[in-house]
């Protein structure tokens, strides 16, 4: 029964991911006083792209063709670590949040290689900038997770969620606030949202993630877009699970699970609305100011770790 539940959580994260992109785009449109496209549009986009031709540059090798597959496989596997409606996940094990972060790094590594394989300047530009940002953003991501792990005395995500579930909502500590802020900033950097990167731009000089996927088309582009949606959805679900897991079912039975599912949709919708508000209110940072942004996140997460160890004394 638990296995079926874990598989369901995993499939939910993967299949509902394009909806995340759709909801955020709709929220941003409403904030800009537009009607916006339907929230189901990304599904239509993916279906359309699967029907189209796959165009490949003449200089590309098999790395270019294999990159969308590896990226999708890595992101989907990473989604198997995150609990959604109940405090367990498909591939949960001790110390698995390192594995989560490094599976994301695997996908990003291959995406950058695929970008370089295009043989023109845009891929190199996107890969070079992404290399800068992602090399710096791994530290606050891991340190923030470590801070929560130290506080919870558990090294796996399911254990941390279980510990937080037993805490009182009003006992917010400095560790949680700092860790949430620094993880939020790291998530913005990793998933390429404002103010680090503009996900809707098509001006070549401002692209980072879009620059890396410029050469892909057809089913490959569908897989790449879906993979980045899965990444965003999984990271948002991770934030919710670590910092606001109340509402999750304490044991595996039908009624609490349904309630937990509804609560999850409300929470993730609220987080996506918050993300849309942030994206609409700030401008994209100049590229050489992004390391400052990430540096502030690193300092906050280091402070969170220091506080977590001080609390433990």
């Amino acid at each position: 029964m638990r296995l079926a539940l874990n598989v369901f959580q995993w499939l939910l994260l993967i299949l509902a991911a394009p909806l995340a992109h759709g909801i955020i785009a709709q929220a941003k449109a409403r904030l800009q006083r537009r009607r916006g496209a339907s929230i189901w549009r990304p599904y239509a986009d993916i279906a359309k792209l699967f029907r189209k031709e796959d165009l490949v540059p003449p200089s590309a090798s098999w790395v270019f063709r294999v990159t969308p597959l590896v990226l999708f496989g890595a992101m989907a596997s990473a989604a198997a670590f995150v609990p959604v409606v109940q405090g367990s996940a498909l591939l949960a094990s001790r110390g698995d949040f390192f594995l989560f972060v490094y599976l994301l790094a695997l996908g990003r590594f291959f995406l950058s290689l695929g970008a370089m394989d295009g043989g023109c300047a845009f891929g190199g530009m996107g890969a070079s900038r992404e290399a800068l940002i992602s090399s710096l953003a791994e530290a606050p991501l891991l340190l923030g997770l470590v801070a929560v792990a130290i506080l919870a005395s558990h090294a796996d995500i399911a254990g941390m969620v279980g510990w937080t579930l037993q805490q009182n909502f009003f006992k917010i500590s400095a560790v949680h606030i700092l860790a949430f802020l620094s993880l939020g900033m790291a998530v913005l950097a990793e998933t390429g949202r404002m103010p680090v990167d503009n996900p809707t731009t098509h001006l070549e000089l401002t692209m980072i993630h879009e620059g890396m996927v410029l050469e892909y088309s057809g089913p490959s582009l569908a897989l790449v877009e879906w993979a980045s949606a899965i990444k965003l959805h999984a990271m948002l679900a991770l934030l919710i699970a670590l910092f606001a897991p109340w509402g999750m079912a304490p044991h595996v039975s039908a009624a609490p699970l349904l309630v937990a599912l509804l609560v999850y949709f409300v929470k993730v919708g609220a987080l996506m609305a918050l993300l849309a508000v942030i994206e609409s209110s700030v401008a994209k940072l100049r590229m050489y100011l992004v390391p400052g942004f990430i540096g502030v996140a690193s300092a906050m997460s280091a402070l969170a770790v220091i506080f977590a160890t001080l609390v433990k004394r």
Partner: protein
Amino acid sequence: MQLESGELPLSFLLLMLGAAVPMVLVGSRAKGARLLAAGMLIAACLAGSFVAALGFWRTSSVLMDFTGFTPFPFTLEIDRLSALFLLLICVVAVPVAVFAVPYFEHHCPERRRNWMWIFFSWFLLSMIVVVTASTGFAFLAGWELMTLLSAGLILIEGDSAERRHNVFIYLLMMHVGAAMVVASFFLFLPYSHGLDFASIRAGSAVLPPAIRTLIFLLAFVGFGTKAGIIPLHLWLPRAHPIAPSPVSAIMSGIMLKTAVYGFVRFAFDFLAGGPSWSGYPILVAGAVSGLLGVLYAIGEHDLKRLLAYHSVENIGIIYLGLGTSLIFLACHAPLWAALALVAALLHTFNHGLFKSLLFLGSGAISHATHTVDLEELGGLQRRMPVTGLTFLIACCSIVGLPLFNGFVSEWLTFRSFLAGAALMGTKAQVVLPLMVGVLALIGGLAAACFIKVFGVAFLGRPRSTEAEHAIEAPLAMRGGMTFLAAACLLIGILPGVLLKPLVALAQGLVPGAGVPPETLAITRVLPWIAVAVIGIAGAAALAAALGRVRRIVPAWGCGLPTLTSRMQYTSTAFSKPIRFVFSAVYRPDRKIVRLPADQPYFPVSISYSSVRTTSYEKSLYRPFANLFVAAANQLRRLQTGNIQVYLLYIFLTLISLLIFLRFRG
């Protein structure tokens, strides 16, 4: 000598490497002789790996005593720690030797090829003696031979003035380090009555704390010089790039590890952890080496220098693990000490595998294109598919991505940092979790660097005619590289193969440790991750390939008709953002020369050069060197050339001896 289970293969190994290979080669210059020699070397290494596997997986210890033949005690003993390093040496030597057969044929001057093979087999022999020695004399003899033979291997390929200068610096630093190692051995003498390892262990129980600290520091600096921690790394980027690629592979993959072996032997076996603050300097040295090593590597575009700096970085990661283990030992947490030690030793083994694979790959590249400058390469993946695939596997391993072996050791290191938060009331409780951030930064920068390396060298379009006409490496080269790549993948997906005996090894070195559950957890979950990633990727491939058409179409170039290969990102361009952000580390000497100088608005040519100078030479080494030269100049005044002054010296010595006897008696 008794012929127990491991003795026979070990004697075979030593005999082959020491005597048989040279004897075959001294005779004739024919290629057949060299093939025979290579075959014997490979057979010897296979026997060696058999012995090592016996010692590592089954703990049968082997002892061989040569004291009869040598002036000082000379014994070889294989316990579990030696078996691990012997396994590393033999497992890496086999594919490197296979690779070297065609490589030496093509890249070595005709009359020197035999000498190359002779030195190569003796070099392997010296390293085997170092890791299996169980007396101080054997260890030091092997240590010295290792240095001299590697210098010889570098000089065989060519001895221009610049190469000789680099080899001089290499030998100088190695001898300074060796002097410290000798000193640290000899400091045991008053307490241990003999320099064999058993009596050293017995003697270390009665060492006074001051001597213990001194031995620890001498061992740290002495072995650190050989390992290449910053700021003692100066010889690494000078010596590794100029050696032939198989030799670089052995030097970087194995020789640096003998220094780690020596340090582990001293710190964990002899000194049982050293002084209570011993972990912190190791930790700091590891962090600094890791960060600065990878930052220097990002600024390089010569592939072999870049790989040499990455060796510095990985030694830093190994020292991070060792420092953590020492801290846990001092805080009486043997379980976590064992975990950190397992992490460091596994990273040692993994690094030997993937670094030698990377150097072999650079050898294949230079064989095909006669250059290792990244700015001249490009598009090699389509022209050298097997080389590209194995190089990609090595890149993924060194970055530490899941499903490759580098990830397992980095994960274990992260996990041991996290465990540091459980140490109540110590400095380590705060310091160790913050090291997670440092290691994450190192790993992220390494990923950026290898995206650059693989992307610029193998992907995209060729940037020069040599790269355009590159051909795949010969079969032997490909075979050697494939073996190492397969080993990387195997350990990455099924690490339990190595982890169980490593845990037993750590339990031997750290008394009172149990089995850390993390090792079991990672062994259990990694195959599932592999299944998940490969399965999903395969399913996606099926879904994407069902009846889809694939068309080759030129890349988007803003509407320009032809895109040249100069319009791609170069290695320098790729690393520019990172170099800009970390500009405090790089202090380049920039020069712009405009000709003609008196007509600034109508230049005929403009040249720009940016040379990064290593600041250590100016600020750290020059003052020392100047001090020594000044002291030597002062001492030279004793040599007056006047015979009566020399007679006076003898007379003064006699008088001082008499006074000394008077006051002692």
